[in-house]
């Protein structure tokens, strides 16, 4: 999750109140942000991904100051028309939208530049998902000439000097050689045209979402006024991005000037079919409205707040209210309010999670353990009575452990992207138990262990993976043999009142002639059903696991056994 670092002094100035440290810590976490650490006068806070508007010092302070009742209600951000426009046309279908505006009068120093670039980066990585959902660009206003066009060009027609590079480069060179090109170039893979901003003199200003021009797209200490743009595949996202960015710049002391955004061929844009949207003003800080449903909020929270109380709480979260229409006014920088349930949470946060009285409701239902789980619990108890230790193992193992070590070659299911060495789902439990024996070589014998657990193989299911719970047992000591493991199986089956027989079989993991299939005999099938295997493990298997003590074992489908007990 993204974090931001606040300078305590600057933060207090922005908030307009100084809180004792303990209270500050407490309030930060009760606002729904996670306090990471306080070091000296630096406060590091984790911001949840639903609140990109709190990713700047200004945005965080704005929310915090409302929350502690210093300055509540809807913040007003004024804009003046700049008197020029951005025209958007002829773009690649993958990157069709752009919005832009002008911000004047910010006194940039080294710190401020760092802050603005950080906010731009953080919005880029979180809110616009590593630029896949949008790009944001800043330009010194005095270097560019209005009106501005955002358009698509063939890669070979694009040539400009990218940020921090000495020479003009072609689009494909930028993607191949510039660090940002290498990092984000994947987004543009397969596009026929690349999007570019071009000013009135025909200068290429940038190639979103990759890189700005060094000549006209680099801000430094001399910059006062900015051209700010956001582009991407989704209009709503980039409008929110520019709202979040510009309101933060306004809180830094900037003045916002709006541009007219023209979409001459608007009918080709899914979000702009309405003819009224051929031309619109950016930014537009008019708050969206959402009906206040007092009962819904009270019912969800278990409270009985009056309309006024709710409105006051919402104001602590930065909302406004229009009494005549019972409408909550949602700040233009909030990107996460998509349903009235989002208002419910903000009311709860403002009310204070610590102020809710917990209560157990009267929802009368009958508790019940899953019957198969219950059966497995009983089987465990029987086996423990037979002096077996229960093991519990990971479901992931290596192919070597599952196949080579067991002297077999079965179709096991691999994972696509495992970071660790265990990259297959186990198809049998015996391999897990052999591993346990190997890990217990230094301990006393006899070592008699069992596991009831999940196994995985290919099958005709929703996922294509058939999951099955098995039971496996191994007995390991100098004098163990087939008789002993069969005694265990007898004892188990007798306890469950089930009948079975052993049928001769052959398996590579076992000694030939000392391995049999376990066949369950019940009402369902006179001939019985094969449910597992029992035998003496092959010396090669024992040696493969680096053991020097005989091992006998069995593995069976415990789900089948469960079903048989139900007949």
């Amino acid at each position, binding site marked *: 999750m993204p974090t931001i670092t606040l300078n305590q002094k600057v933060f207090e100035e922005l908030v307009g109140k100084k809180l004792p440290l303990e209270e500050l810590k407490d309030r930060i*976490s009760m606002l*729904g942000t996670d306090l990471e650490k306080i070091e000296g006068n630096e406060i590091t806070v984790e911001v*949840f*991904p639903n609140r990109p508007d709190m990713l700047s010092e200004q945005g965080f302070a704005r929310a915090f100051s409302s929350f502690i009742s210093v300055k509540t209600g809807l913040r007003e951000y004024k804009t003046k028309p700049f008197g020029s426009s951005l025209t958007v046309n002829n773009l690649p279908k993958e990157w069709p939208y752009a919005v832009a505006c002008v911000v004047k009068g910010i006194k940039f120093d080294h710190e401020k530049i760092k802050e603005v670039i950080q906010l731009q980066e953080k919005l880029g990585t979180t809110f616009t*998902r590593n630029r*896949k959902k949008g790009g944001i660009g800043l330009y010194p206003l005095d270097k560019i000439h209005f009106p501005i066009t955002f358009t698509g060009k063939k890669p070979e027609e694009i040539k400009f000097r990218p940020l921090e590079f000495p020479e003009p480069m072609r689009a494909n060179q930028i993607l191949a050689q510039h660090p940002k090109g290498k990092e984000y170039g994947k987004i543009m893979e397969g596009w026929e045209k690349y999007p570019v901003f071009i000013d009135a003199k025909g200068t290429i200003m940038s190639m979103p979402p990759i890189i700005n021009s060094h000549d006209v797209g680099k801000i430094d200490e001399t910059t006062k006024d900015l051209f700010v743009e956001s582009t991407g595949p989704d209009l709503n996202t980039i409008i929110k991005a520019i709202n979040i960015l510009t309101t933060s710049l306004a809180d830094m002391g900037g003045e916002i000037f709006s541009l007219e955004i023209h979409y001459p061929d608007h009918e080709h844009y899914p979000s702009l079919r309405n003819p009224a949207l051929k031309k619109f003003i950016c930014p537009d800080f008019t708050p969206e409205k959402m009906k206040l449903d007092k009962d819904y909020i009270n*019912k*969800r*929270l*278990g*409270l009985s707040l009056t309309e006024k109380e709710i409105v006051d709480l919402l104001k602590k979260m930065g909302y406004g209210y229009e009494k005549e229409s019972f409408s909550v006014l949602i700040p233009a920088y909030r990107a996460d309010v998509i*349903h009235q*349930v989002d208002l*419910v*949470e903000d009311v*709860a*946060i403002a009310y204070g999670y*610590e102020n809710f*009285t*917990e*209560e*157990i*409701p009267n*929802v*009368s*239902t009958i*508790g019940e*353990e*899953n019957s198969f*789980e219950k059966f497995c619990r009983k089987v465990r108890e029987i086996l*423990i009575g037979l*002096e077996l*230790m*229960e093991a*519990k193992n*990971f*479901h*992931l193992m290596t192919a070597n452990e599952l196949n080579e070590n067991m002297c077999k070659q079965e179709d096991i*299911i691999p*994972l*696509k992207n*495992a*970071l*660790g060495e265990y990259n297959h789902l186990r198809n049998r439990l015996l391999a897990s138990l052999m591993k*346990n024996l190997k*890990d*217990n070589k230094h*301990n*006393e014998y*006899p*070592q*008699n*262990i069992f596991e009831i657990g999940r196994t995985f193989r*290919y099958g005709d*299911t*929703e*996922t*294509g*993976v058939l*999951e099955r719970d098995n039971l496996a047992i191994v007995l390991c000591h100098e004098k163990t043999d087939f008789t002993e493991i069969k005694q265990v199986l007898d004892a188990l089956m007798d306890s469950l009142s089930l009948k079975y027989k052993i049928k001769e079989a052959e398996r590579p993991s076992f000694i030939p002639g000392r391995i049999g299939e376990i066949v369950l005999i019940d009402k369902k099938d006179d001939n019985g059903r094969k449910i597992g295997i029992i035998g003496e493990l092959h010396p090669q298997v024992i040696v493969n696991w680096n053991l020097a003590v005989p091992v006998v074992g069995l593995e069976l489908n415990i789900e089948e056994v469960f079903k048989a007990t139900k007949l």
Partner: protein
Amino acid sequence: MGTTTEKRASTGGLSASETKTIIAKLHPLERTVLPLLKKVTELSSIAKAARLSEIEVMRALQWLENKGLLNINVTTKNIINLDKNGSLYQQQGLPERIFLSILDDQWKGLNVITKKTKLSREEVNACIGVLKKKLAIETEKGEFLHKLLDTEKYAVEELKKRKEIIKFEELKHTEVKLTPEGQELAEINLEGEVTNRLTTKMLKDGSWKDAVFRAYDVEINVPKKTPGKKHFVNQAIEYAKQIWIDMGFKEMTGNMVATSFWCFDALFVPQDHPAREMQDTFFMGGKVEKGKLPDSKILEKVKRTHEYGGDTGSKGWQNRWSNNITQTNVLRTHTTVLSAKTLAGLTEKDLPAKFFTLGKNFRNEAVDWKHSFEFNQTDGIVIDENVNFRHLLGYLKQFFGKMGFPKARFRPAFFPYTEPSVEIDVYHPEKKEWVELGGAGIFRPEVVQPLLGKDIPVLAWGPGFDRIILDYYKITDIRELYKNDLKLSREMKSWLK
């Protein structure tokens, strides 16, 4: 030499009662061995005469020595003996001899030599070394020239350097000498004097009435028993499950492999959410990268909800939906999958309802003391028209109270599928600090409406469970949870809550 024995000897033998006590405690092995000691005194001969193994005789001798009846005198001699390879070479000839015997003026290549001599490659290499040193052969540009010299006798020093030809051994010689008390007892006929075991026969024929039972050393340590035991993680899980059952919750179970539809989409996690990326989630490979689409009705509802909110009154994520993404199989990242599936299967007559599950989930991580790719989580849902946020907190507080943490606090949190969302901290009474245990909330309408068909409150939680287990058993290395070290497991305290 025991000092007590000397004292006793000087005061002149055993009293009758002392003799009786000692005899009563003699083990059958001691009874067999003792009389023989009048004639034979060396370990191997005693064993032969007694028809016992040397180990058994040694045990008896040590017991008798402890009783002050004899002294054991062990002397050792150093000898040189043939080792494994030595005995082999004694029969077959030394490898360098074999090597030379097949060499002529022509270079044959090491593989041919190895094959022809039937020596191991290691031995062949050793031969070349030995023979070069003895100037028996010269190698030049990879070719052999051999000049036969007289083979010499190898000195012990030289054989020592070679692998398993000779070994140095200590030969133990064990002699016993009876003490005066021992001599006294050796004269007594010990057979038939005491009974070792009570038998069925004795009970039936009444001969037990005349029997004198051999007295045991009841203070002695006995070999350890190895009881069966439930795995300690399962003990904890069973306890927690019982809490939910007692509170009226029904258990949900299900698969660990899930399509992204159930793991994420049905829970309104946007398709481009970072948690769905490769570094966090295990994706399935091989023939099962993709699963089947769910029932088309439910697919359509969930899809529309993502795109524009569907019938939920929400704006949705306004993302482009991909069936390709929804079909991608993953190892479940949370047991909340089961909550989603359960919701989708409920009808009006099943309500109100409460469900829980406690099971394994997966995250793509390499294992170290702090991280594991498998972890336990306990999920619960309460579906009822009249439940609310305070009830959510009530259930959580109750559960954690019963788990041993009576003090709980709640903080705002964020999860894509709940609103309001809660983070649960419990106060650790020993560490005296707040410990974060996991998340909860009320499912968003965007989750409930498409799955259940109507939007009623569904309380939901899914805190991790491993922290509680680690804490109870005082385990600091998470790998110990599934290490299955039998010694540790046997000694591990039981879950006594």
